[in-house]
């Protein structure tokens, strides 16, 4: 008799301990983050941006200036809003991108006007680094010869060609939208896809034309012909640094001065080639840029194990904390939804609605509100909030369904025996709903492991990091280094929940699941 009460107490104690432990961890984590504010550099999800960020970081490291590189954060929008809201101090950008995308200006880039406009927003713009990484259209050399394609205007005579553009390029005024009207391009089939995947599709012939950056390492590696911009559409994309005015510390200013005009187009193509085609670490490429000699260190097994362990910790932290919060919120929400059907419809519509927001969009949407409440819009917070929101649906729905499927006759019996509402809730309804409730949590946990890989888009680390880098570098081994542990974690979590089910669900209910 008392054993069941003791078991509940033991369970409560375990849950309390877990809560206190996680709260303590969260506090120490945030305390650590507030020690000394380092200079935070961001980079886009592209090799060149990462290499440029590393080059500045290495220089600041040499000057003993604490620097942090939040790598591969995403596209212009994520980085710009992070810079403007003060979550980043600097990131490398291109003049044309700011001119058209952020300032919404037309015509050729006026660097002086650009500098003034940015200063008014509190952003310092460095002098150009030296190269112009403009957009270009590339065609495999063999195809270009066969169809005699050399200029962008030639495309009009070949409407059967399949065009594949990065999603960013496709929607930009200085990208496909403007290009199309400038050259009167009509009738081509256009597909939006990841820039890195486009090269693979070009190789297999599923795609004929794609957007390129003029410093892309692939132009040589993949033997592509760059179509001449014969009607001068693409604006200049001079690489330069954007730095928050108040973060322009003397060592930063002098580093930017040293970099001014130092990287020519051919030098950048070479740097990109080392990082992207030769799979060298961007930090090593950056060190060599500053004259260090790097001994070739083969990737040892110990390194790999440490790396995977670190990412597993990051990944598990994302999954664990978001799941814990979703349980603490979702279960009471599911109960309340059951108790009041009208409120329940609102709750279920809300949590289902959240599920339909594309994950990348959700991450971007979260930057601003998180910043308002004093949290970082990049790193763990947006990833945790997004995962928490996605976990709500299965947990709320299954709690609600678990309670709803309890036959009315049991409720009447409980009523007839004058059983108190508390006992009814804790000893009758919830234990009977537990199999469904646990199944909901299990679903959320397993889905979370997959969703959490997207955390890497906002710098939250985890298994998504090698997956994103692997896609970017066209490196299967690296993709697998993230994908396989992620799969294993999902399977292990599944096992954990099956074990919990065995321990927590009454044997009297088990015949159904067995």
């Amino acid at each position, binding site marked *: *008799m*008392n054993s*069941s009460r003791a078991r509940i107490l033991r369970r409560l104690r375990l849950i309390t301990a877990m809560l206190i432990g996680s709260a303590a961890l969260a506090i120490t984590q945030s305390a650590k983050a507030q020690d000394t504010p380092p200079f935070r550099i961001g980079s886009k999800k592209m090799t060149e941006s990462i290499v440029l960020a590393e080059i500045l970081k290495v220089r600041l490291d040499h000057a003993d200036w604490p620097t942090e590189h939040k790598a591969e954060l995403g596209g212009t929008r994520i980085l710009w809003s992070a810079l403007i809201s003060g979550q980043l101090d600097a990131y490398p950008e291109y003049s044309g991108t700011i001119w058209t995308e952020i300032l919404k200006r037309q015509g050729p880039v006026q660097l002086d006007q650009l500098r003034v406009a940015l200063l008014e927003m509190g952003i310092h713009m460095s002098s150009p680094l030296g190269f112009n990484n403009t957009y270009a259209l590339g065609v495999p050399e063999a195809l270009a010869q066969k169809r005699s394609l050399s200029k962008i205007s030639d495309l009009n005579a070949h409407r059967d060609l399949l065009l594949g553009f990065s999603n960013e390029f496709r929607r930009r005024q200085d990208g496909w939208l403007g290009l199309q009207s400038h050259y009167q391009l009509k009738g081509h089939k256009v597909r939006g896809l990841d820039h890195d995947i486009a090269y693979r599709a070009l190789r297999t012939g599923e795609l004929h034309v794609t957007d390129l950056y003029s410093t892309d390492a692939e132009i040589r590696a993949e033997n592509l012909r760059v179509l001449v911009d014969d009607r001068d559409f693409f604006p200049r994309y001079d690489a330069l640094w954007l730095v928050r005015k108040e973060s322009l510390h003397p060592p930063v200013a002098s580093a930017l001065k040293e970099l001014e005009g130092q990287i020519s187009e051919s030098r950048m193509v070479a740097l990109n080639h080392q990082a992207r085609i030769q799979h060298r670490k961007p930090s090593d490429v950056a060190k060599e840029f500053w004259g260090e000699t790097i001994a070739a260190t083969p990737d040892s097994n110990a390194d790999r194990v440490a790396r995977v362990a670190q990412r597993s910790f990051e990944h598990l932290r994302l999954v664990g904390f978001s799941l814990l919060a979703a349980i603490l919120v979702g279960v009471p929400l599911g109960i309340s939804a059951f108790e009041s059907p009208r409120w329940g419809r609102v709750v279920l519509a809300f949590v289902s609605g959240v599920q339909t927001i594309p994950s990348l969009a959700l991450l971007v949407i979260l930057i601003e509100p998180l910043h308002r409440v004093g949290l970082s819009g990049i790193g763990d917070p947006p990833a945790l909030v997004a995962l928490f929101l996605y976990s709500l649906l299965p947990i709320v729905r299954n709690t609600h369904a678990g309670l709803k499927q309890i036959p009315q*006759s*049991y409720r*009447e*019996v409980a*009523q*007839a*025996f*004058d*059983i*108190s509402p508390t*006992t009814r809730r804790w*000893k*009758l309804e919830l*234990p*009977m709903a*537990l199999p469904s409730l646990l199944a909901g949590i299990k679903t959320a946990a397993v889905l979370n492991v997959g969703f959490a890989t997207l955390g890497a888009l906002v710098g939250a680390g985890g298994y998504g990091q090698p997956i994103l880098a692997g896609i970017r570098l066209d490196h299967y081994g690296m993709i697998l280094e993230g994908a396989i542990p992620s799969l294993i974690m999902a399977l292990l979590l599944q096992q954990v929940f099956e074990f919990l089910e065995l321990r927590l*669900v*009454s*044997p*009297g*209910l088990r*015949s159904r699941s067995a």
Partner: protein
Amino acid sequence: MKNSERTLLRLHGVRHAFTDATGQTRPVLENFSLQLQARERVALLGLSGSGKSTVLRIAMGLIQPTSGEVEVFGVRQSEIGNLSEPKFDRRRIGYVIQDGGLFPHLSARQNLTLIAQEDSWSLAETQSRIEELCQLTRLPLSLLDKYPRELSGGQRQRVGLMRALLRKPELLLLDEPMGALDPITRDDLQRELGEMFEKLAIALLLVTHDLREARRLTDRIVLLNEGRIEQEGQWSDLVDRPASEFVRRFVGAQREVHA
């Protein structure tokens, strides 16, 4: 149980109707009246859907009748009363539904201790009462730690009965307790229950469609047809002096089986 003439339950002119999915009002009980004295055993007999179970649920305060008077233990239940808190102590009534109504996630013993814990019984008190009830219902002690799904239909019904008797109620409401049992188990259980009720001297309101069961376990039969009382009286009254063609057919159909 002090006063054998005390009225435990009185329903007068009770009507109950519900609105179905198509929005139509469907009467379940019409002008239903019934009195149950202490120690009296009455069967509510009728076909399925005749409103028998509704009477029990009204008596238990689980549903509010559309109109009519309901008195439980001499207390008039208000017509617009709060259902979750009827004006009588539900602990004085034992309730058993078809297949026992045991909570599936609790063992037989836990189904019993749950009730004892609600009333803050001591461990020893609970233990001795459970042993007593096992003897009374002839349930082997070894079955107490089994879960409902591991018990046979008859065993489940015994545990359900133990649970209903745990608080020593004055009145027992049984809703087709043997509806799901095979004929042999049913026959055994009916015989045992007859002896048990005799011993306990408890008042009983039994819902059944089985004429033989009604005859074996109760003194008086109320035969319902489509929500109305068709005939009320002893078993012999129904057999010898059927009040209507329906009674004659109802009795005849069951007698052929048992002939």
